[in-house]
């Protein structure tokens, strides 16, 4: 379905919040796609990172929140360090997670599904960072 | 018609200017022959009432030296102004505030505190401070009010001419007196000294290099002064280039750098800032750090560059505005 654009929709409060929480200006992006090209997890994402930023420029935060992209992001920061326009894409992903969690997103971690042996096996840093990135 | 009446008066001064008049030596006899000295507290016994009794404008010319800081000085200045046709600010202190003017770097409170409470060798167990009025068995004693700041004479009364110098030279005094007697005076407000700078009469100026560049600032107290070289070129701060001529470069004759007592040449308002600019122009460095270090070796620039002219400097003028 077509996205209908008008000036109210373009600069939404959600988009302002996204920029504030991530501390980045999404309008700096000129859509070179370097973030997507270098992303290690892009194959598993519904929307590639550069499109996330594009949709943010259009104020389409809800559409982004409906995708799994920010939950797949592993915070490896490859996108941010390679961005020629200093857009902190990785920071945007973190902000999206924060916004989704504040909106009451259901738990995306599968910690509950893991057996105690599996949990025992995993190093602490894996569990804690997974927990911290995806639930708080 | 009798001889023209002349008055001499001193405000805040060291007495050097009075001495300068005496330095006229035998020429003073010519002066006395030509004029009637009707008021000269330092040399002759006159009272304030004598002056008050005179008719306004009856004094032909009044030479006043010293800066102004007290009510008494203001009162006397105004009185003499009223009685005189011409007032000549005599010497650096009357001209620009002079050495007493350096007190303006401190506030009145600071001065009082230092003098009456904190001076080394001071014994003042009761923390006594001078009072405007104090009762003693003999009656009431009064002291004049000590003002917030030191002023040059023209900041208190209208001044017709200036005789600069600490102190003015006998030749200049004689020249001024002659000019007044002969009525050959320049327009009002002029300084009765040449428009050129001290370099003009300094014998050392011939020894200057093509370009004066200095890499270090030297102080006379710590370094030997060369007898026959341009002191500025040797790194000593010499205010000669920023100072009005007329002294005949006397200080350099006795191997001391100029301190600027004649004040700035015509067209320069702020001697200190101007000299600072000139000094920085000849410092030979383009490295910010080195510049910073070099400039730190200029000790007490305000006191040095404004040694004689602080009360008439830009800075004091804006302070005055704020006070008003």
């Amino acid at each position: 379905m077509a996205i209908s654009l008008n000036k109210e929709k373009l600069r939404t409060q959600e988009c302002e919040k996204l920029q504030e929480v991530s501390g980045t200006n999404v309008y700096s992006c000129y859509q070179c796609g370097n973030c997507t090209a270098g992303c290690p997890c892009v194959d598993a994402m519904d929307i590639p990172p550069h499109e996330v930023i594009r949709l943010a420029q259009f104020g389409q935060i809800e559409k982004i929140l409906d995708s799994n992209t920010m939950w797949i992001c592993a915070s490896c920061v490859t996108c941010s360090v390679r961005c020629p326009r200093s857009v902190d894409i990785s920071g945007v992903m973190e902000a999206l997670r924060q916004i989704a969690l504040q909106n009451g997103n259901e738990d995306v971690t599968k910690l509950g599904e893991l057996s105690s042996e599996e949990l025992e096996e995993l190093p602490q840093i894996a569990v804690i960072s997974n927990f911290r990135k995806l639930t708080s | 018609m009798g001889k023209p009446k002349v008055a001499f008066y001193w405000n805040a001064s060291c007495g050097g200017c009075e001495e300068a008049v005496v330095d006229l030596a035998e020429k003073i006899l010519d002066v006395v022959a030509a004029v009637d000295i009707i008021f000269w507290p330092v040399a002759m016994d006159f009272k304030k009432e004598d002056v008050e009794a005179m008719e306004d404008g009856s004094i032909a010319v009044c030479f006043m030296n010293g800066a102004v800081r007290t009510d008494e000085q203001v009162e006397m200045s105004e009185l003499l102004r009223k009685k005189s046709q011409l007032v000549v600010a005599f010497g650096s202190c009357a001209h620009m505030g002079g050495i007493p003017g350096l007190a303006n770097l401190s506030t009145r409170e600071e001065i009082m505190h230092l003098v009456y409470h904190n001076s080394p060798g001071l014994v003042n167990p009761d923390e006594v401070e001078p009072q405007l009025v104090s009762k003693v068995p003999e009656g009431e004693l009064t002291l004049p009010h000590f003002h917030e700041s030191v002023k040059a004479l023209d900041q208190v009364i209208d001044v017709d001419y200036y005789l600069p110098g600490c102190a003015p030279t006998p030749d200049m005094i004689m020249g001024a007196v002659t000019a007044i007697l002969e009525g050959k005076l320049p327009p009002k407000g002029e300084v009765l000294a040449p428009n050129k700078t001290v370099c003009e009469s300094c014998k050392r100026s011939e020894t200057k290099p093509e370009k004066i560049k200095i890499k270090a600032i030297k102080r006379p107290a710590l370094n030997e002064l060369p007898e026959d070289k341009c002191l500025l070129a040797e790194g000593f701060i010499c205010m000669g280039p920023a100072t009005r001529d007329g002294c005949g470069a006397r200080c350099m004759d006795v191997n001391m750098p100029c301190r600027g007592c004649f004040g700035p040449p015509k067209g320069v308002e702020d001697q200190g800032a101007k000299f600072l600019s000139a000094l920085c122009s000849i410092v030979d460095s383009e490295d910010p750090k080195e510049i910073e270090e070099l400039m730190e070796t200029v000790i007490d620039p305000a006191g040095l560059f404004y040694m004689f002219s602080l009360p008439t400097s830009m800075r004091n003028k804006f302070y005055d505005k704020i006070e008003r």
Partner: protein
Amino acid sequence: MFEPKIIAFYCKWCTSAGADLAGTSRLQYAPNIVGIRVMCSSRVDPEHILNAFKEGADGVLIGGCHPGDCHYKSGNYVTLRRITLLKTMMEDLGISADRLRLDWISAAEGKRFAEVVTEFTEQIREKGPLKKESLKEEAV
């Protein structure tokens, strides 16, 4: 709110051109500053600066080319020396040295010009109107 009055002196080649660039780029900055364009920052005499304070300026900004880039080879170094010593002397005279700022702004730095002006204006606003600043006591 206190609106400081600030005089700026800037050289024709770099800082004034930088100010022009700020204009062509439509960068907004504090209006408290009014500039006097001189050929080179080295034309600015410490006497002018003290005069500006005398006439009621709360701050003075000097703008020149970056070191090494002076249109007249070395003028900005002369300025640097003068301002360095003048700042020391101002402190002795009871004018806070913060009220005088020397900055290098090139013709290409419109953005920087706007930033410096705004920043300096705010700094002076915070200091308040020019008053007797007894700096010696502060030092004690």
